[in-house]
C-alpha cells in the first residue's frame, strides 16, 4: 500500500502547502512503512518537480497535459482514483485549500474512504488512523478516527512543519485514460499574479475599520512591504470596498495560520478571530485597551495606529538594515 499526496502549483511553482503535505505523508509513512507518491497536475518542469523528492516523495507522477487545465473536480477525482489503483494506495493527502476541498470529499465517496478535513496536527495514532482537526472555527479541536480501510485527509496550510528528507528523484510522466476537461468550462480567468498568496504567507499584516478609510492603507502596505508580508483585512473593510474581498479574513472569509499576524485597528470579534486563531504569534495595535483582540494577542500596543504604525515601520527598517 502507498500514500498519495495531491500537490498544487501556481504560476509554474509548487505551493508551499504541497511540501507540508509531503512532510505530513512522510510522518505517516515512517510509522506505517508505506512509500509516498506525489501527484502533480500541471505544466511543471522536472527541476521544479524534483523539489518534491527533497522532502521524501519516492515517486512523482506528473500529468503534464494542456487538457488537464480545467480544474474540474469530477474529472480530477477520476484521475486520482485511476492513480490510486495503479499505485495501490490507501491513504490520500490534500491541502485544506480550495482545490483540495473540491476534490478530497469526492474521492472519499468514490473510494469509500474515511474523510478527515481541516487537520491541524500530526496523527495521534496510526492504526487506526486518529487525527486532531479544527472545529467550531478554531474554538475547539476534535479527535477523529478512520473506520474504513482507506483514508482521505486535508491538511490546513501553515499548520504542519516541512521537513527535508531527500530521496532520489523518480518522475513518471503519466497519461491518464480519463478525460481532463469535464462539464465545467472555464470562460475567463482573472488572477492577480506576483502577489504573496494570503493563505501561504508566513507573515500577514491586517487592517480593520479603525483605519477609517481605504485611503489610509498606504502605511499598512508599507508595513507589509518591510516585512515581506501578505495583506489582509476585517470583513467591514472589504464590505465597504476599502479593500478587495481577496483580503477578507475571518469565519466568512479566508482562514489563515501565519507565523505572525499583525492586526491594526481590528477589535477582535469572534468571527474575525475564527479566521486567524491558527496564527502562531498575534500582535494587536488598537487604541482601545478594552478591545477583545488583546485577549487573543501575544503582544499588544495600545495606541493610535496613525502614530504607532509609522514608528513601527521605522523600527523595522532599522532592524532590517
Amino acid at each position, binding site marked *: 500500500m502507498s500514500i498519495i499526496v495531491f500537490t498544487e502549483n501556481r504560476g509554474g511553482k509548487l505551493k508551499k502547502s504541497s511540501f507540508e503535505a509531503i512532510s505530513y505523508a512522510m510522518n505517516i509513512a515512517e510509522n506505517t512503512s508505506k512509500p509516498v507518491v506525489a501527484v502533480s497536475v500541471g505544466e511543471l518542469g522536472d527541476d521544479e518537480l524534483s523539489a518534491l523528492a527533497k522532502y521524501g516523495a519516492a515517486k512523482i507522477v506528473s500529468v503534464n497535459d494542456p487538457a488537464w487545465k480545467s480544474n474540474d473536480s469530477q474529472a480530477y477525482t477520476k484521475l486520482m482514483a485511476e492513480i490510486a489503483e495503479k499505485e495501490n494506495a490507501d491513504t490520500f493527502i490534500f491541502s485544506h485549500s480550495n482545490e483540495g476541498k473540491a476534490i478530497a470529499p469526492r474521492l472519499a465517496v468514490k473510494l469509500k474512504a474515511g*474523510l478527515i478535513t481541516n487537520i491541524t496536527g500530526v496523527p495521534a495514532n496510526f492504526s487506526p488512523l486518529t487525527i486532531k482537526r479544527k472545529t467550531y472555527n478554531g474554538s475547539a479541536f476534535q479527535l477523529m478516527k478512520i473506520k474504513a480501510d482507506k483514508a482521505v485527509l486535508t491538511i490546513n496550510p501553515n499548520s504542519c512543519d516541512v521537513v527535508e528528507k531527500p530521496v532520489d528523484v523518480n518522475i513518471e510522466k503519466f497519461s491518464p485514460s480519463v478525460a481532463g476537461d469535464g462539464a465545467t468550462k472555464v470562460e475567463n480567468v482573472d*488572477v492577480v499574479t506576483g502577489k504573496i498568496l494570503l493563505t501561504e504567507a508566513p507573515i500577514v499584516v491586517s487592517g480593520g475599520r479603525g483605519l477609517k478609510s481605504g485611503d489610509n492603507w498606504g502605511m499598512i502596505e508599507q508595513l507589509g512591504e518591510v516585512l515581506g508580508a501578505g495583506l489582509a483585512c476585517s470583513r467591514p473593510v472589504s464590505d465597504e470596498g476599502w479593500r478587495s474581498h481577496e483580503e477578507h479574513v475571518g469565519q466568512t472569509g479566508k482562514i489563515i495560520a501565519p507565523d505572525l499576524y499583525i492586526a491594526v485597528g481590528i477589535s477582535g470579534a469572534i468571527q474575525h478571530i475564527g479566521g486567524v486563531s491558527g496564527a502562531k504569534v498575534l500582535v494587536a495595535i488598537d487604541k482601545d485597551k478594552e478591545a477583545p483582540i488583546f485577549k487573543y494577542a501575544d503582544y499588544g500596543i495600545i495606541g493610535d495606529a496613525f502614530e504607532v504604525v509609522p*514608528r513601527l515601520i521605522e523600527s523595522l527598517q532599522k532592524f532590517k538594515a
Partner: protein
Amino acid sequence: MKILVCLGNVPDTTTKIRFDGEMKNLATEGVQWVINPWDELALTRALEIKEGSGGKIEKVSVVNVGKADAEPTIRKALAIGADDAYRIDADPSDAYFIAAQIAEVVKNNNFEIIFAGKESSDFNGSAVGSMLAEFLDIPSVSAVSAFDFPDGKVVLKRDIDGGKETIGIDTPFVTIVQKGISINPRIPAMRGIMMARTKPINVSQPVAVDTLVEYETFELPEAKAECKMVDPENTDALVDLLHNEAKVI
C-alpha cells in the same frame, strides 16, 4: 427546473463553545440555533434567481438532515421564501451520512441545481456538497462567489488562488458557495412567516450507510498566555520581542 438548497442547523456564530463532562458533545443549553450562514446566503441567491428566471425555475426547495428539533430552522427558510422542505429524520452524524441522505432526495425529486455552503459554521467540514455530487455522479463547482442565470444559462464565478475564474456549466450540478454569493441574507417578512406555517415539510426516514469515520473527543485550545503590552512610544521593543523572543522575524 428545480433548485434544492442544503440547510444546516447550527449554533449561532457567537455561541460560547463548551462541551459536556466527557468532552463528547457540545453543551447545548441556551444555544440559539440558526441556518448555517452560507446556506442562508445560498437560499437568498436561489430565490433571486428563481424570481428573475421568467418562470424557468419553478421551485426552490430546502433539505435538512436532522431530528424534529431542527424544524424551527427549516420553518425560517420557508418564511424567507423557500417553496417547500425535505427533512430526513436522523442525527446529522457525519458528512458522508448527510450527503448520502440528500442524494436520495435529489434522485427521487429530480433537482437540477443544488446549492451547498462551503462548510457548516460549527463542524467546518467542507465536505457535504462535494460528497453529494460524487454520490450523484454529477459535476460540482466549489468556492463559488457569484451565480448568474442569463437566458437560462448558468454562469458561475469561483475563487482560485489570488483571483477568480468565470465558469459555464450545464445542469445538473452542485454549486458550493461562499462569501459574495449574496451580500445580506433575506429577512423573513410577516407575510412570509404566516405562509411558512402551511408550507409542506416532507419527512422521510434515512437510508442505511456504512460508518467510515468515528468521533472521539473534543478538546479546547490551551489557555493563551497574558498579552505582553509594549509602550506605544517604543516600537523598537516590539521588534526586539518579535525577533528574539517569538522568533518570527
